[in-house]
């Protein structure tokens, strides 16, 4: 009965938490398991990284893990990035020069975050079999940017208090919560384990950004009336996907693993929800919309070797097909069946759905590689460390404060200790070092029409510290 309660609790918590933001690339945040999370693992996180690993241990195991951390980020926007800066003393629509700090300067955020991973794995008493269920959040992120106190209580420019990054993000979260059932079987003759998992995925997007009707950062129209408004999007869906994998053990001390996680819904999916807007002097209004929300498939491969019994060396990597993320297109629900069709310049095509707003992404595939080592001080105490590199999925032309991604290095240290009979406690600290990115102010808008956004030029910095604290109970 307690086991059932544990599972229900984990599901409930996963459904309410913002995901972690220790990103591999894009908004892939699958770092559960810490240094134990990789495609040759026998840890419970195998349910996602490679279900074949579930059959490589025996008995029943319960895993509960919290991934706790802090994310700090800053975005400096130069004055040159302002779309229409009106010199002091002149009149016209745009950003009056006297309040250029409403659209230029530095925005910051400092957010704690937490995300759970929970799984139950068992051989059900059958030799070479492994089955498991788990709940976790491999895709997601949350952000709440700091206010610009210079504009607190400013009635003339009521939007500026939300920071210079507000045209892309004020506050929001995106997350895909996976509930997975997986099975694996080890073929002794072939020294090969094969596994597969079925994922039920709930994806949610809740974001708010500043917006005006023409896609610029203009604060006021030529007559001084306000142009800045807000767009609040709240959309979700349920989809399915599969994961498959294999682990080959050619000799006792060597494991070679490959795995594949399919795209949620196996193709581009639409989230359904509401877009609430307040533009200019209009009253707030709601529109039923569908949000085109492509998510990538992920290929993983890794090798684990034990040159001596006390030492394990690992190298593994992933390839994430972020290039499927072309546009985050918001279209009217009633026309979504026609599909969002956007040309290269960002204009909506006439034979497609009615597009309300489009955020061009045009992402590219990204890959990461990590290496790590474990050393057993005794049978009850393991220490480990790892280093990694992950590329960025986001090109300069569509990078923005809403989803910041940079090339990054990771460094991890941790330990796993048997704290009681059948019970192990694991802790991994990971520091993610992001490389600074700088974008020059553009001469012309990158995209036109419905896809136009303010110039996202500036300097992006980010830092993430993560602590995975996990508990394993074996029986």
């Amino acid at each position, binding site marked *: 009965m307690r086991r059932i309660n544990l599972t229900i609790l984990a599901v409930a918590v996963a459904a309410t938490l913002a995901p972690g933001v220790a990103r591999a690339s894009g908004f892939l945040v699958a770092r559960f398991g810490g240094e134990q999370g990789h495609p040759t693992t026998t840890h419970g996180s195998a349910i996602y990284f490679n279900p074949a690993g579930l059959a490589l241990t025996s008995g029943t195991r319960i895993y*509960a*893990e919290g991934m706790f951390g802090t994310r700090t980020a800053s975005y400096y926007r130069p004055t040159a990035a302002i779309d229409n800066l009106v010199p002091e003393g002149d009149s016209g629509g745009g950003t009056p020069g006297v309040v250029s700090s409403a659209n230029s300067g530095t925005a910051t955020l400092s957010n704690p975050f937490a995300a759970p991973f929970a799984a139950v794995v068992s051989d059900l008493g059958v030799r070479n079999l492994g089955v498991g269920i788990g709940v976790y959040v491999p895709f997601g992120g949350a952000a709440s940017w700091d206010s610009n106190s210079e504009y607190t209580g400013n009635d003339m420019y009521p939007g500026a208090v939300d920071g210079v990054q507000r045209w892309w993000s004020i506050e*929001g979260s995106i997350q895909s919560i996976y509930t997975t059932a997986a099975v694996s079987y080890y073929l002794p003759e072939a020294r090969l384990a094969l596994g597969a998992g079925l994922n039920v995925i709930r994806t949610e997007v809740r974001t708010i950004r500043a917006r005006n009707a023409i896609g610029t950062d203009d604060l006021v129209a030529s007559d001084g009336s306000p142009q800045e408004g807000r767009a609040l999007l709240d959309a979700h869906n349920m989809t399915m996907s599969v994961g498959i994998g294999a682990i080959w053990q050619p000799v006792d001390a060597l494991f070679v693993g490959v795995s594949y996680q399919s795209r949620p819904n196996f193709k581009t999916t639409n989230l359904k929800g509401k877009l609430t807007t307040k533009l200019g002097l*209009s009253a707030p209004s709601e529109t039923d919309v569908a949000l085109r929300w492509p998510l990538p498939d992920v290929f993983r491969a890794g090798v684990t070797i034990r040159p001596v019994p006390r030492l394990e060396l690992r190298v593994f990597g992933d390839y994430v097909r972020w290039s499927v993320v072309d546009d985050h297109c918001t279209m009217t629900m009633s026309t979504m069946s026609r599909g969002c069709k956007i040309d290269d310049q960002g204009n909506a095509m006439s034979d497609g759905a009615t597009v309300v707003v489009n955020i061009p992404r045009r992402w590219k595939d990204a890959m990461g590689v990590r290496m790590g080592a474990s050393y057993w001080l005794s049978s009850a105490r393991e220490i480990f460390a790892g280093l990694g590199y992950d590329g960025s999925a986001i090109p300069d032309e569509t990078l923005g404060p809403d989803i910041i991604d940079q090339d990054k290095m990771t460094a991890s240290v941790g330990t796993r200790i048997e704290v009681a009979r059948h019970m192990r406690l694991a802790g991994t600290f990971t520091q993610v070092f992001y490389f600074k990115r700088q974008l020059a102010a553009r001469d012309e808008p990158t995209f036109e029409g419905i896809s136009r956004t303010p110039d996202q030029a500036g300097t992006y910095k980010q830092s993430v510290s993560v602590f995975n604290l996990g508990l394993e109970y074996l029986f």
Partner: protein
Amino acid sequence: MNTRPVTALTGGLVGLALLLSACVDPAGKFNDFVDRAPDAAPTPDAEILSNIPDVSGRFLFSLSSVVDVDSPFYFIATNTLHPTMGGSATITTSLQPLDYLKRTPVGDPIDFETEPVSLTGQFELTATNVSLPGAANPFSDSTVELSQVTIKPTIKNPNLYCGEVTGMLTSPLMLDIAGSTMGAVRITGASDGSGGMPDPVSRCPADPQN
């Protein structure tokens, strides 16, 4: 088997996770902004006229939506004013949408019923459903659908009338356009457009004589 320690430790992890979770409330931020943002200003009452200026003819009609006063929809209004007894009048109007960039006719004209003009020079044009082609849309290429449109102009002089517009934008966005404004300036050139267009006016000027 005693699973109490597992439950306790798991509960601790979960509790800590809840405490540290980054709580986001986008809807709350939206409501905060709505509370801070100003509303559209009301239009002052009109005065009674000694006679109603004749606004028959062709006008460049600019409808400045409440979302962005600098990006109006353009039409050519063709009016016929019919004086009636007691100094009042009726007006018959047709609006031909114009391409936003080229200012050339696009799509079908919108014909309104003949409506009375009050002694203050005010009249009211209503349309249940209006569809404007994407080329007339100043914001994007999407077709614009409106419903329950009401235009309430006041005739200021023979060359100008202006006022408020209400209604619901139903596509591509649901939006109440109450607070939008319009202005119509007489086109003095030839009907083929060779005389050029006047400068658009999309709301009532402070001094309508200028």
